[in-house]
C-alpha cells in the first residue's frame, strides 16, 4: 500500500516531465518569418535578377541587379529612388555586379569580372574604386575603410585578405592550413563588431568561428555530410553540390546559415546558431534563395521568383 502511494506519484511525475520539456522546447522552436515588404514581381521591371543586398540605418535598401548592370536604391517602403550603372568597365559601370556592403557614408560593390570594388556615395554617385587583383567570392568593409576579401587562389588556399583603401594587402587571415582541392576552401564569411570571424564552407559541412586574433574558437557540422560529389568539367574536377550558401549575423550575435542542396528544404532552410555554435533553430524561407541578409534592425532579406523579387521579413520568436 505504502509502495503504491509512493510509486504512483513518481510514475505520473516521470510521465508528465517529458510533456513539459517538450512543450517548452516547442515554444523555443517557434521562430517564424513574417513578410513585411516585397520588391519587384514577375509583372514589373523593378528587378531583373538581383544578387547583392545591403540596408542602411534609414532602412534604404541597396541592390545589385546583374541583368541590367545596375545598382539600385529603394526607400524603406520599397520605392525605387535611384538607379546607376550600365554595361562596361569604366567608373560606375559593371560587367556582372555582385555583392554589396556599406559604411555610414558609402556603398561598396564587387563585380565578377572587374578586378576592383567600386565605391559610391549614398546617392549612388561613383566616388572611387579599390583595385582587388583577384576574383572576389565575398567581402566585408571593416573600420578604417579596410576591405576583407574571400577569394579563390589556385596556389594559396584558405585565406581572407585585408586590403587598405588604396588596394594594398595589409594582412591575411589564414583559416585553414590544409591543402585542399579546387573550390574545397570556398567560404562565405561575416565579421562581428568585435572583429570575430564566422565562416561557412560552401563545399564542406563546416562552420567555424575565429577570435579577432585569428585563433579558431570552434568548428561545427550541422548536416553530417561527409563527401560532396565531384564532376570533371573542362579538365577541372569540381564539386557539384553546395552544402552551405551564405552566412549572416543578427544583433544578438546569433549566426544564420543558408543551407544548400543537402538541406531538408534545399536553398530554403536557414539554420540559427548561438554565438557558441549551438543549433537553436531552423527556419524555412518561403522561396529558394542564393543569399540571406540581416539588417541593423534584424530584418531578414532573401530572394523570391528566381531573383525577380526581394523579400523582407520580420523574424518572430
Amino acid at each position, binding site marked *: 500500500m505504502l509502495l503504491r502511494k509512493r510509486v504512483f506519484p513518481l510514475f505520473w511525475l516521470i510521465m508528465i516531465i517529458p510533456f513539459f520539456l517538450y512543450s517548452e522546447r516547442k515554444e523555443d522552436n517557434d521562430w517564424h518569418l513574417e513578410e513585411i515588404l516585397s520588391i519587384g514581381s514577375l509583372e514589373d521591371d523593378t528587378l531583373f*535578377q538581383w544578387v547583392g543586398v545591403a540596408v542602411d540605418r534609414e532602412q534604404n535598401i541597396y541592390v545589385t541587379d546583374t541583368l541590367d548592370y545596375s545598382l539600385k536604391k529603394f526607400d524603406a517602403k520599397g520605392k525605387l529612388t535611384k538607379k546607376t550603372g550600365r554595361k562596361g568597365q569604366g567608373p560606375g559601370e559593371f560587367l556582372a555586379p555582385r555583392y554589396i556592403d556599406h559604411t555610414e557614408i558609402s556603398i561598396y560593390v564587387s563585380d*565578377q569580372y572587374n578586378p576592383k570594388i567600386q565605391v559610391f556615395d549614398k546617392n549612388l554617385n561613383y566616388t572611387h574604386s579599390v583595385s582587388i587583383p583577384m576574383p572576389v*567570392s565575398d567581402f566585408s568593409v571593416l573600420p578604417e575603410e579596410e576591405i576583407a576579401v574571400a577569394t579563390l587562389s*589556385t*596556389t594559396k588556399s584558405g585565406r581572407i585578405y585585408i586590403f587598405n583603401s588604396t588596394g594594398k594587402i595589409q594582412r591575411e587571415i589564414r583559416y585553414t592550413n590544409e591543402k585542399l582541392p579546387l573550390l574545397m576552401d570556398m567560404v562565405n564569411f561575416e565579421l562581428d563588431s568585435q572583429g570575430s570571424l564566422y565562416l561557412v564552407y560552401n563545399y564542406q559541412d563546416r562552420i567555424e568561428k575565429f577570435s579577432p586574433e585569428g585563433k579558431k574558437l570552434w568548428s561545427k557540422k550541422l548536416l553530417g555530410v561527409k563527401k560532396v560529389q565531384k564532376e*570533371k568539367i573542362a579538365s577541372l574536377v*569540381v564539386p557539384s553540390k553546395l552544402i552551405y550558401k551564405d552566412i549572416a549575423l543578427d544583433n544578438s550575435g546569433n549566426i544564420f546559415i543558408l543551407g544548400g542542396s543537402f538541406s531538408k528544404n534545399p536553398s530554403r532552410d536557414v539554420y540559427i546558431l548561438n554565438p557558441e555554435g549551438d543549433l537553436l533553430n531552423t527556419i524555412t524561407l518561403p522561396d529558394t534563395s542564393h543569399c540571406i541578409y540581416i539588417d541593423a534592425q534584424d530584418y531578414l532579406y532573401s530572394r523570391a521568383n528566381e531573383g525577380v523579387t526581394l523579400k523582407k521579413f520580420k523574424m518572430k520568436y
Partner: protein
Amino acid sequence: MKSFRKQSRKTAFLFGVLTILLVINGFSQEIGDCEQALGRCMLANIRQLPNFVQFYNGVAYCAIGYVFCLKYLDK
C-alpha cells in the same frame, strides 16, 4: 641556345594542344547550365596561354563564376 628556344617553344605548343584536348573532352560531357558556362569560360581562358600566371588567374575567375552560378540556379 637556339635549340633550347626551339625545344621550349615545342613544349609550350604541345602543352597548349594537350590543354585544348582536355578541355574539349571535359566540355563534351557536360549537362547543366553552370557546367556549360564553366566549360565555355575555360575554353576562352586558353587564350591566356602560354602566360601561365594569367591562365591560373583565369581558372580562379571561371571557378568562382561556377560557384556563383550553382548558388543562384541550384535548388
